[in-house]
């Protein structure tokens, strides 16, 4: 056990873990807010919805589908000039937050859309029949009734970002991905690689279990 911990410390796995967590938490927070808003606009403007608007609906659908069409590693490279413009660098934690956030927004919007589609359209009609405003319906019905699914969606987003952040390690992203490239690709150090993989697997399991538990706890269905 001491040997394992020493190896962890020597290869800098804890600071890499910290960098990865920082990247995925910040990216998840921003992408969830933006993705949720895009999704709410899409839901609001869909046909037969609260405020149908063909143009806005197709625009939001296009944004969601466009974002999901581009493989992340390519998006990462394409965004380098934009990332440098926003945060001043394209490497390290700061340099990765921009592409990680932009890359996950369409995924979040899609996850939110799936959650909102679970809400019975009849329920919307029933709440409208009480004289509720559209903002009340969006918040009290769509968001609150879908909350367990949205919580699971946050967990899914974070796990997806673990994968994306690992990819970003190949282009100077840092974190566990960068560590894996350094020790696995450049130094051929399989022992360290195994430990990094174990750390990533543990992290994903903890994220999944945590969000599953929270979702189950708040789900009153």
């Amino acid at each position, binding site marked *: 056990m001491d040997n394992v911990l020493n190896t962890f410390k020597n290869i800098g796995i804890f600071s890499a873990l910290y960098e990865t967590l920082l990247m995925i938490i910040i990216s998840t927070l921003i992408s969830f807010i933006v993705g949720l808003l895009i999704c709410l606009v899409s839901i609001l403007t869909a046909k037969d919805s609260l405020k149908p608007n063909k143009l806005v609906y197709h625009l939001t659908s296009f944004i969601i589908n466009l974002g999901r069409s581009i493989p992340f590693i390519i998006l990462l490279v394409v965004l380098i000039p934009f990332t440098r413009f926003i945060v001043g660098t394209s490497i390290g934690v700061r340099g990765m937050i921009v592409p990680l956030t932009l890359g996950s927004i369409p995924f979040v919007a899609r996850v939110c859309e799936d959650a909102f589609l679970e809400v019975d359209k009849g329920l919307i009609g029933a709440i409208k029949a009480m004289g509720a405003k559209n903002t009340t319906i969006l918040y009290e019905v769509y968001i609150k009734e879908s909350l367990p699914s949205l919580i699971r969606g946050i967990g899914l987003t974070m796990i997806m970002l673990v994968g994306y952040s690992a990819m970003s390690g190949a282009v100077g992203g840092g974190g566990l991905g960068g560590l894996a490239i350094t020790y696995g690709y450049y130094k051929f150090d399989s022992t360290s690689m195994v430990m990094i993989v174990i750390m990533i697997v543990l992290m994903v399991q903890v994220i999944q279990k945590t969000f599953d538990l929270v979702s189950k706890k708040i789900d*009153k269905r």
Partner: protein
Amino acid sequence: MIRAINLTKTYPQTSNALHALKNVNLEIKKGLIYGIIGASGAGKSTLLRLLGGLEEPTTGEVLFNNKNINLLSRQEKRLMHQRKGIVFQKYYLLNQKNVFENIAFPMRISQYDNVTINQKVTDLLDLVGLKDKALEYPSKLSGGQQQRVAIARALATYPDALLLDEITSALDPFTTKAVLDLIKGIYHKQELTIILITHDIEVIKYLCDYVYVLHDGEVIENGPIKAIINQPNHPITKRLLGGINHG
């Protein structure tokens, strides 16, 4: 109180348009229980949705207290909705809110104060016999209990009229009787105007003062319940009374 004048509702489709309602005229007077009966697909739910202001007619008017509800401003329409309580077949309770909060919900939308909400919801829980279920969530309730919560919710904002859309169709006979007795009790206590949509003639017979018979989007017969039952004129009405058309 509520009047439908030459109401038509057509749903455009890829091949032929669906004429759900064709020139429907009806009048709902204050303080009576009206039944609207017809087989499945007769246009009953569409009619209720138009009377409740949930959809706009293709042509024609719906007047609520002599005002055309489709010409009201958004604010006026919201206030009008608060004057009518609607109960649907599928209850449509909010799963993430407990019974108390479900019943309180329309009052919160209408911005009643907490003291009034607490008092009114407590009274309604008593009225529908669910005082001990206040903190339960809908998933823990039976169908009949969920329907009672939906009825209590529809009564929360002191409505003038109650619109009930096939509220007993999903319930067993014993629960149906219990719910109908509850409606009867509420009617006598609160002197509401009630419009009940159903395909079940027994429900109409048990509860209603006046009935409209709907078939293929048209009112084919209407009158006081006793007159319709004793002397139905239209063959469709006779068939419905014979109980052949069920759902």
